[in-house]
């Protein structure tokens, strides 16, 4: 049976997030030839509708309201449920983002359905779709499916499911007006700590530093290499706790979960909580003074040495060939 699938589109710094395009690709698989309807919630979001169509949405529904300027589970919950009531979807896909993680359990609860979160791969299509997700801090994987009929609901981990080719297509972008009332949370302020530019969770190349970086200045050679490769700088909790960098750079169970094409870990020992956030990376390079460091167990390539020797040389070497 083909399914109608709703996808929540998300924006960041005035642009759609890649994970929304990836969610559309996941929705296509689940739909088994059915319709993919993207949903945009916010104060003024309709301008992004056509871009979601270009990435594969058949239709877009926007809900615009001053109360949707900042995310709250009450505001977004009411708006999204209004779309659900109108569309009666058979499946829903969110990104496994701050918003997706916070909102999806509420919607799943209201629909009394199962929610399969943090999906990294989908096997099969339509009714036969089975979802793969990491468990036990990324040490194992499970294959999960919905038991009975009901709304199939998943959240997808950024950078794991390939988005579809962008194509000029046309699709209806319509708006739904929803009364949004009784918000129990008032957002006072958001202290932006994350660097502008490359979003860590979507970066293709990440140069991450740990306690071995030894100081704030120690991150500079890492930043230089990241800039050269068009990537982003990340960090272990050890480096954040030591105040060498901001917590917004933290990668791992508590921080960002990343899946870049290339992850270079410099001066990071490889604690399980760190690996939970990066072990799915396509290629991992470890640079560490200690040949016994745990990080070498997940590394594709390793250099045993001082990162302050290795990283600047790497930058020089890449400059020669790029």
């Amino acid at each position, binding site marked *: 049976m083909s399914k109608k699938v709703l996808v929540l589109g998300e924006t960041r710094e005035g642009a759609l997030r890649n994970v929304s395009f990836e969610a559309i690709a996941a929705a296509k698989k689940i739909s088994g030839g059915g319709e993919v309807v993207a949903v945009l919630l916010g104060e003024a979001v309709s301008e992004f509708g056509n871009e979601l169509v270009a990435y594969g949405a058949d239709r877009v529904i926007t809900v615009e309201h001053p109360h949707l300027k900042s995310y709250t589970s009450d505001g977004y919950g009411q708006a999204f449920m209004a779309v659900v009531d109108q569309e009666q979807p058979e499946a829903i896909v969110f990104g496994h983002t701050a918003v997706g993680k916070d909102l999806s359990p509420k919607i799943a*609860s209201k629909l009394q359905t199962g*929610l399969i979160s943090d999906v990294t791969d989908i096997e099969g299509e339509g009714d036969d779709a089975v979802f793969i997700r990491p468990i036990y801090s990324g040490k*194992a994987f499970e*294959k999960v499916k919905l038991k009975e009929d009901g709304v199939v609901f998943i959240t997808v981990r950024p950078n794991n499911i390939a988005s579809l080719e962008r194509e000029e297509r046309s699709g209806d972008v319509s708006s739904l007006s929803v009364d949004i009332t009784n918000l129990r949370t008032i*957002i006072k302020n958001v202290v932006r700590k994350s660097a502008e530019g490359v979003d860590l969770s979507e970066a293709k190349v990440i140069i991450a530093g740990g306690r071995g970086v030894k100081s704030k200045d120690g991150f500079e050679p890492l930043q230089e290499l990241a800039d050269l490769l068009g990537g982003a700088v990340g960090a272990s909790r050890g480096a954040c706790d030591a105040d060498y960098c901001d917590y917004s750079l933290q990668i791992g*169970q508590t921080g960002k979960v990343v899946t870049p094409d290339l992850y270079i870990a410099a001066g990071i020992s490889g604690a399980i909580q760190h690996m939970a956030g990066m072990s799915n990376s396509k290629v991992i390079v470890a640079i560490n003074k200690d040949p016994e460091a745990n990080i070498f167990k997940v590394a*594709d390539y*390793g*250099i045993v040495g001082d990162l302050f020797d290795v990283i600047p040389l790497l930058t020089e070497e890449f400059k020669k060939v790029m």
Partner: protein
Amino acid sequence: MNIYVLVKRTFDTEEKLVVSGGQIQEDGAEFIINPYDEYAIEEAITVRDAHGGEVTVVTIGDEEAEKQLRTALAMGADKAVLINTEDDVEEMDQFTAAYILAEYLKDKEADLILAGNVAIDGGSGQVGPRVADLLDINYVTTITSLEIEGETVKIVRDIEGDAEELETSLPLLVTAQQGLNEPRYPSLPGIMKAKKKPLEELELDDLDIEEDDVEAKTETIEVYLPPKKQAGRILEGEIPSQVSELVSLLRSEAKVI
């Protein structure tokens, strides 16, 4: 203040994990309180000490989970409740857990419910918000700071590295993120006292729950270890020659640059 903490006994993922017959082997494994729940317990105790009231820790599980409940009592919680599902529930998912917890909590008039933002075993992060929805109370996830001033609750939460400052009110459910506090270790007197603190054991019958009501919505078909990576290549030789070898490997073999 009437405070509840939702706690899960989890496999310690720092330990070696063995999978056989499509399942995680639990024999001989080390079990702990889910680390993010420890932050929730610590915060509950701090709030009680500042505002008065009582902290009750609640878990779903079997008799083995008593150990983790006693640890929470030794940290300073006042009461513990074990909802023992051993005989009634074969497969549990987040729907099941949230339903049972909400049925238990619905007549408790909790002012504040705390939970971890995620459990390190299943990693879904759903149970807290689901419970709040079933109880029809507000929730705030991944919090790093909590202040209660009269009717107002001031919270800072972590949103992908940014800090969101917000205000809300009780009754409320929050889920704890690392950074909220430093959980205390149980003291020796704490451990002694914990032995005498009340630990109530309930079954689904006691909560008027039918087995059918809590049937899992999702099904795990298989659990497996990631395909064994080829042993990584530790490069050799002088550092400059290792570096140029690495660059050419990344370009020609791994093809990521």
